């Protein structure tokens, strides 16, 4: 990563990969990619590839983690060692621990956990290839994998990043779905998730430097893009359901 900072990330309204500020990268959704799991999905955002698998509801160990009134949604976000430029040591570090926590909180909001008191619903979010926005790609995958597992949900979780790029004059521009260069060099990186039907924001993390107005503008762009992703999720689930019922 001894790379030089690029002169611009956006120029004439076009980003480095040709996208407009409000464009997400090509998104692919593959359902049921891990047959062993109770539910699974792979979500691809450009060069970012993440697989989520769900096991459960199942018995919860260790005992002191049991919640009497509802199921506990546990998330383990991890990166394959070769998913990044420099080999990542196996096993979660502090970054992965934090991400696992906020993903679990977002998913807990939509899972109807009270249907499964004392049980565990385990979600494994595994980054196969990282090109920024891995946690939000993973959260979409997790939402789909939960639905694939037949876990009753209040809504889907729709997630993407947004942030602040700069043009050749150093002027900031809000953009959605950051790729690697924008994440490395941009002036703001926001991980964001909504439950559209509930009208709630479930994930919000930011590194950067933005004004309140910039933030609001980005959020509006993200909300719009989220609706597209929401539709994709629903289409993928419908197709999966129809395939299953054949």
């Amino acid at each position, binding site marked *: *990563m*001894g790379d030089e900072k690029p002169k611009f990330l956006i120029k004439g309204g076009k980003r480095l990969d040709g996208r407009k500020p409000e464009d997400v990268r090509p998104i692919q959704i593959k359902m049921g990619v891990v047959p062993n799991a109770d539910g699974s999905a792979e979500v691809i955002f450009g060069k970012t590839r993440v697989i989520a698998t769900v096991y459960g509801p199942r018995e919860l160990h260790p005992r002191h983690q049991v919640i009497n009134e509802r199921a506990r949604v546990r998330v383990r976000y991890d990166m394959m060692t070769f998913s990044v430029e420099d080999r990542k040591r196996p096993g979660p570090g*502090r*970054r992965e*621990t*934090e991400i*696992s*926590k*906020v993903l679990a*909180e977002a998913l*807990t*909001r939509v899972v109807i956990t009270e249907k499964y008191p004392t049980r565990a619903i385990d979600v494994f979010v595994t980054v196969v290839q990282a090109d920024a926005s891995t946690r939000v790609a993973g959260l979409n995958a997790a939402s789909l994998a939960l639905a694939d597992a037949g876990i009753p949900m209040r809504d889907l979780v729709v997630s993407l990043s947004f942030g602040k790029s700069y043009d050749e004059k150093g002027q900031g521009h809000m953009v959605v779905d950051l790729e690697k260069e924008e994440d490395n060099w941009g002036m703001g990186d*926001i991980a964001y998730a909504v*439950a559209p039907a*509930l*009208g*709630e*924001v*479930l*994930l*919000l*993390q*930011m*590194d*950067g*430097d*933005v*004004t*309140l107005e910039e*933030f*609001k503008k980005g*959020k509006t762009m993200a*909300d719009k893009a989220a609706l597209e992703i929401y539709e994709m999720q629903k289409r993928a689930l419908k197709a999966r359901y129809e395939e299953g019922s054949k």
Partner: protein
Amino acid sequence: MISEIISNLELSEIRDAVEANKRLDGRKNDEFRDIKIETGVIAKAEGSAVVTMGKSKVIAGVKISVGTPFNDRPNEGVLMVNAELSPMAHNTFEAGRPGEVAVELARVVDRSIREAGVMDTKKLCIEAGEAVWIVNIDFYPLNADGNLFDAGTLAAMAALKTAKMPTYDKETKILNRENMKNAVPMDCTVVASTFAKIGDKMVVDPTMHEEYASVARLTVGIRDGNIVALQKGGNGGLTSEQIDDALTRAIKHSKNLLKHIK
């Protein structure tokens, strides 16, 4: 956030109080507790501070040493922020490796300081590729009563602001902590405001019982009126309006908070 149970009675008392904009300790929903900061409390540390925020109390210390830079950043020093939720400070804190609560706390405080550009780590270079300053900020709650995010950020900033640099002799490789005079190079100051969602209200600077009674949390790091760090926590959602409300209020609060850090 923390698994202790509070009674349903207390829960509804807290909610009613927030609804009436008169919290159980008498504060309005947009009011911080009294803040007191004492610096230079640890002679052994290069910088230190104790922050008292109501009944929450946090101690932060800065230790500065010399190490080798990371391979991919040969001319940058290293800044590390770490939170230790020592079991001394609350009966729900457990000994052992930091759990996800401590990791999140440390990373959110670290994020504000890093993203605000408080420290230009390039100024911590002694000899490119060979020797750089390593600045460790560790903080511990001395009594935990909610909102360790904001108290921790204040403590870290106050400790850093009053810290002095050791000297280092490149030839002999001797680090000297006697007669430290120079301040640590700092470019700006950052503060954080944390909100808890209780009912559909956002209350600032929650006590621990308010945290138990809340369904979501939002921490906002502010530098010069800009937002530099955000972290939502908790199993509930926030509406877009609640977020905007919190951000606006955090920008306002930042001015008062900054006054506490000389």
